[in-house]
């Protein structure tokens, strides 16, 4: 997976992030184990993995917060391990750390200007406030905001220097579904502006929805990479026909000769679909009492990809 392209001139590269055989050990614990990937300009890249997989460790190496113990990484063409390069990287990246909170007693606007002042040039605070949809809250103190709004302030803060690449470490963890959608909306807007985004998440649907490229990381190793479609095609398994709420009863009512069905989620029947079988199955179902049930065809998701690759599912909490 590693391609050994020569490093292009610092700052000029389309390869915004280049990671080559990167490792990080904490004592005996190998948090990141020999990973390689690239991130191209304008791409939304999702680093997908459960808790403790090594996402934050990797991101923070790229942000020059931690030193790798092996391998190399370049950001915008600059070497993250070189002190003189680090100064260049810091000027041009945007960072939203995991679990970030802005300063409690400063307002939304003051917070944006506070972090903006750390850079030579900062974007207009009001424009950023508009981008993250916080116009009515801009003079509200940070501590008075709800979790979702706080996270949007974090997003605005991470963009304040008009960065060439934005690192968002689990930007929606702990948010309710509505607030997550709002954050997604902001990230989509970034994408449409052509920003390069490095996103970590343990939410499969988030990666699938937002990312151009997904790398799945588990126990410090990248176990699969590609576009969501590629991953699903390669590792997702078959489409499934779902008959809702049919229960044990329904299982007995199934016609003969179908692929092996199983019961899921308290009463849904799932039948794996092979190519071209759908019409036949539906026609045979029409003869049974099950034709009254709600029937849908489900495409495999990244959940299935992860399950097939690791034999585990990732819970809502990321474990």
């Amino acid at each position, binding site marked *: 997976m590693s391609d050994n392209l020569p490093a292009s001139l610092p700052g000029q590269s389309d390869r915004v992030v280049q990671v080559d055989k990167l490792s990080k050990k904490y004592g005996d614990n190998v948090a990141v184990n020999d990973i390689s990937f690239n991130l191209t300009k304008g791409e939304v890249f999702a680093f997908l993995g459960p808790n403790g997989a090594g996402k934050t460790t990797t991101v923070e190496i790229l942000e020059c917060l931690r030193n790798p113990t092996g391998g190399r990484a370049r950001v915008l063409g600059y070497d993250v391990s070189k002190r003189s390069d680090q100064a260049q990287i810091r000027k041009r990246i945007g960072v939203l*750390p995991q679990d970030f909170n*802005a300063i409690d*007693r400063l307002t939304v606007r003051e917070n944006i200007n506070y972090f903006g*002042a*750390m*850079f030579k040039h900062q974007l207009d605070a009001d424009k950023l406030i508009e981008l993250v949809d916080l116009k009515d809250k801009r003079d509200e103190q940070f501590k008075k905001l709800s979790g979702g709004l706080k996270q949007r302030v974090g997003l605005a803060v991470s963009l304040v*220097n008009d960065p060439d690449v934005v690192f968002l470490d689990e930007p929606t963890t702990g948010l309710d579904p509505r607030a997550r959608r709002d954050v997604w909306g902001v990230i989509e807007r970034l994408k449409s502006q052509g920003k390069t985004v490095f996103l970590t998440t343990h939410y499969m649907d988030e990666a699938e929805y937002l990312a151009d490229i997904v790398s799945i990381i588990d126990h410090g190793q990248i176990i699969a990479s590609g576009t969501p479609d590629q991953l699903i095609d390669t590792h997702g398994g078959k489409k499934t026909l779902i008959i809702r709420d049919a229960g044990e009863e329904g299982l007995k009512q199934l016609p003969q000769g179908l692929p092996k069905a199983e019961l899921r989620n308290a009463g849904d029947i799932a039948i794996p679909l092979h190519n071209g079988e759908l019409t036949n199955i539906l026609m045979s179902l029409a003869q049974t009492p099950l034709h009254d049930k709600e029937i849908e065809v489900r495409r495999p998701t990244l959940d299935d990809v992860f399950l097939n690759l690791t034999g585990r599912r990732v819970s809502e909490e990321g474990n």
Partner: protein
Amino acid sequence: MRSRIYTIISGHFKSWYRSKSSIFWTIAFPLLLIVLFGAIFGSGSTKFDLYLQNQDLSANTPTYFSQGYITVLNNTGAFNLHVVPAEQPDPLTYVKNDAQLHNRGQRLLVIPLGFNATVMSGKNATIQLYMDQSDQASASLAGIVHSVTVSYAAAIAKAPNHLILQQVGIVTKNIRYIDFFIPGVIGMTLLTTGVFGAVNTNGSYRELKIIKKLATTPLSKIEWILGMVGYQMILATISLVVILFFGYAIFGVTATIDIYTVGLVVAASLLFPGIGMVLANFVKEAESADAAANAITFPMMFLGGTFWPRETLPDIMKIIANFMPLTYVNDGLRYALIYAEPAQALTNTLIALGLASFFIVLGSVLMNWKEE
């Protein structure tokens, strides 16, 4: 581009004045202490303190007429007489030190050697009263001593002019408890705002990932620390001004602000946050860091001469107090603000500045800016 350090200072400052509890601890609490302690210790007895040295001894006992004079003086009930031993060669210095220690007025009455003999011989005998004309009690006190002297002379020799009360002006600073306490409260406030400010801000900013975020920007650790120190200086100046103004308005405490005061404020704004940063480095968890800050500040407050003079401490405690940085800030502030003794103020200021450089450098070196 606004300067990064300025931004950090103003961020801290806004957070400070928008928090009621911060305002309470840095402003209201010290004022409350002043009123409380001022009320408890401020109003001493209504009698005048008067030091008395009777040099006219014969075989270690006071001579007849000198003893008679003292008895009459005592019987007026107007004085708290404090005896200065006759062998004390420099009674004035003795009085000065002892009066400061016990927060008494500095007034001294000296009955000279040969007083008894002079009275017996029928010549005019002289008694000296050392007193500061600016001492508020001087007029009434001198009046009472004078009339005692005249009536005693009349009684023993039927000649009122036989005894002469010679008044000698001295310059004293009449140190009351409240004069002593005000610089102590300032020192205490600088101590607590500095130590707790550093421990709490660094702790909570770390927990909230604000420090992590800042470390990904061009901001450097040194700029961050300078910002914090700058903020502490502003806070220290505000505390100083508010407390001094309050002390003047309520208790008439007059203070001189000089170069040493400025030096001490600078020293304190480096020293105490420096100590806080060292602490925060050893105790990572926010709650235990707070406990550690308490464990450090309380003994310093009590032994460092905030509430009572260190001279009153047991010997072992006096030694411990010498190792407490607050001691030098407190002493320096007293010498600079109240006692107007530049030499002493300078010594303490220099020690405080030395300690300040040590702790701020140590704290800065120990602080992790990047990796946790």
